[in-house]
């Protein structure tokens, strides 16, 4: 249904002057006519070009001809019946016109930004971190390591300070002996310091500056001293490659890039965390393989069967799925059949392998956290 001579306000989009006008809707000829206060035609808008300002607070219907921004002139209608008539007669009131060119531009920029983020996260930042890690002097790296160690100390010893480290002297000595044997033929710029933390988590890690931390849970899980030696040799591999400090630099570079993408939308933080986890997993595969190879070589030099590493991976594979495990070594070192097979391939049947430490010493290591 059309209408004639309804009061409205009109802005020509050229000046700030407000004009009282009348509008008439003619459905048959498909047009809206705007008359000035004397009755002369001011403008004629075809109905299919009419656009409405959406999500308005209800002060009146704002109409323009063409897409919202380029259409300069505005008609503001307050009459409810006229508004209803226009809604019924105009097909494109809320249609947004997006040209194929705009879609092309959007697609291009989606591609460009995805490529930029991926390139940074997977190529540039890792390469840069690797290059720069070499230039950090060992004594400074050692200081960074000590600072990180203190941070961990603060984290673990929430109740009784100083109690977090296992210091049974016999066990410590045996552990150091084990580590010493694994360093044959390797030069480290700093002394390797091995320590055990009194925590049930099955985990071990290397910190910048040659600190290797083993958690009590991992010692308890190991069935033989050789398995512990295998894990330690792997961590020594990280130290030899300067992985910890490189990882710190890399983490700094990618930190926040994902939350940049996702925004502060509710739940975005969780997604960003998961994403960062995936990135480290992707980045660390090569690093882990190299640490494995280092471990196999050093185990062989120490006269310990590389099979121990395979055994330990198989042990982890069996225990996988236990939620208590998912937090520790498994999360950063996903055990796989492939890694176990690779380790087993390093075993030379012609060679006779020794025990890594005597059974008394192994007992002392197992008791290292006893008070």
């Amino acid at each position, binding site marked *: 249904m059309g209408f004639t001579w309804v009061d409205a*306000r009109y802005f020509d989009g050229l000046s*700030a002057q407000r004009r009282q006008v009348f509008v008439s809707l003619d459905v048959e000829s498909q047009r809206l006519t705007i008359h000035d206060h004397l009755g002369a035609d001011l403008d004629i808008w075809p109905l299919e070009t009419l656009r409405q300002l959406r999500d308005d607070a209800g002060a009146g219907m704002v109409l323009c001809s063409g897409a919202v921004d380029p259409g300069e002139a505005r008609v503001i209608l307050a009459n409810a019946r006229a508004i209803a008539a226009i809604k019924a007669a105009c097909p494109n009131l809320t249609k947004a016109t997006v040209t194929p060119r705009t879609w092309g531009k959007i697609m291009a920029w989606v591609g460009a930004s995805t490529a930029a983020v991926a390139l940074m996260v997977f190529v*540039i930042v890792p390469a840069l971190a690797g290059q720069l890690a070499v230039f950090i002097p060992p004594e400074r790296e050692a200081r960074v390591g000590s600072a990180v160690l203190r941070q961990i100390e603060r984290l673990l010893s929430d109740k009784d300070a100083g109690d977090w480290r296992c210091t049974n002297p016999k066990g410590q000595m045996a552990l150091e002996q084990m580590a010493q044997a694994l360093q044959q033929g390797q030069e480290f710029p700093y002394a390797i310091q091995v320590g055990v933390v009194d925590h049930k988590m099955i985990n071990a890690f290397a910190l910048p500056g040659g600190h290797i931390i083993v958690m009590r849970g991992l010692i308890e899980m190991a069935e033989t001293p050789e398995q512990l030696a295998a894990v330690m040799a792997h961590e020594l591999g990280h130290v030899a490659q300067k992985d910890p400090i490189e990882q710190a630099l890399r983490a700094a570079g990618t*930190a926040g890039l994902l939350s940049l993408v996702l925004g502060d939308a509710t739940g975005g933080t969780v997604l960003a965390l998961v994403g960062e986890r995936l990135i480290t997993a992707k980045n660390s595969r090569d690093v882990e393989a190299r640490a494995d190879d280092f471990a196999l070589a050093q185990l062989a030099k120490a006269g310990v069967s590389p099979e121990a590493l395979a055994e330990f991976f198989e042990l982890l594979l069996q225990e996988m799925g236990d939620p208590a495990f998912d937090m520790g070594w498994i999360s950063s070192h996903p055990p796989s059949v492939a890694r176990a097979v690779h380790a087993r391939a390093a075993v030379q049947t012609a060679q006779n392998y020794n025990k890594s430490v005597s059974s008394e010493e192994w007992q002392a290591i197992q008791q290292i956290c006893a008070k």
Partner: protein
Amino acid sequence: MTDTLASQGEGAALAPVPLDGAFLTEKSKLFWLAFWTGLLTVLTLGIYRFWARTRLRRYIWSAIDAGGDSFEYTGMGLEKFLGFLIALVVLAVYLGLLQVGLSFIGFNLWGAVTLEPSGPRDVLIQVGATYVTGLAVLPLIFYAQYRSRRYMLSRTRWRGLRFGLDAAAWGYVWRALLYFALSLVTLGLLIPLSTFRLEKYMTDRMWYGDAVFEQQGQWWGLYPAMKHLLIALGVLVLGGAVGYFGLARGLGAVILIAGSIWFLCGLVYYQVESFKYLSAHKVLDGTVRFTSNASSHRVIGIFVLGIILIAILTFVLSVVLGVLIGIVFASGGSVMNGDGAGIGLFAGAGVAVALAAVLGYIAFLVLIGALVTVFISAPILGHYIDTLRVENAQPLEQINQRAGDRMADADGFADALDIGGAF
């Protein structure tokens, strides 16, 4: 000659027509818009946020009325999304390189520090190393602030004419950095200088149609607005002294708490009073002036009332939700008590309950966001607008349209860096 004089005399004789601002909004419509767009944002993993922002702005702008004509926001979600993508490319590269470089320097500096900081120099280096990343992002934040104001103004219309801001973001960046440093070094005593000069920089480049704004007044004119901040500082120092010298620990704590509350109110007071001063000294086209009668009491009142209201609403809702989840759990439990065949069913119910809990939690957070918009952000904006008056509106009629401002990157930098305030 006499003719023009006469007509001028006639114009001057007309009493200046004031034009009052008004904020006309229905709480329920605003709530559903904020809640629905917030929910869509979560469900689309954040992608919808550009459209959500745009729709909310469209609503808020159209609720702002000046002299019977409402404002109009013509921004589009798609252009915001595009702007974000453009900003993302720049930021990913800049931030990635910057963070690696800075932490490299940081590690080298950190290494130079003895294990336990032995003097103020070591502490300073440590603190510096921690904050240097933040400082390196600061120029970008100021850049984004200016760009987003420019985008917002270029997409704002009133009586059909566009607002605008000159393209001068880098000039703003170095000034903002300078005033930021000055405020920091003087322990906040030069904050009025910073507030005034930065506002003047923006206002002097701001347009309505082809008419330019001008910020008049003096920076020290903002010192009266600092009144309550200074008093609060005095109270805090007093409380600290009372506690520190062991005169009365409890009394010291009470004074400290009172001082902190006073400080927060002082911040609001500064915001409101500086807005009033700056508005009173703004001129459009050399003749149009403005007055703001905003009241810091009202703003604080809206804050407190809003927080209490939201707290009550969320409490009631969480009780209802908790009861509902309890009922679902109980029914799930009864299935398990059946026989062996029920175990599979129970596992299904468990997943359903977990899913419902996660969805409920997310909806809850979105709800709180919407409530904050409806009961705090919008009413405060509304109060500023309701108390704003254009003193002589007649010259406005002579103003003409200005050309549009394309801005391909829209306010993408502000979106990526998560700055930009409530709307």
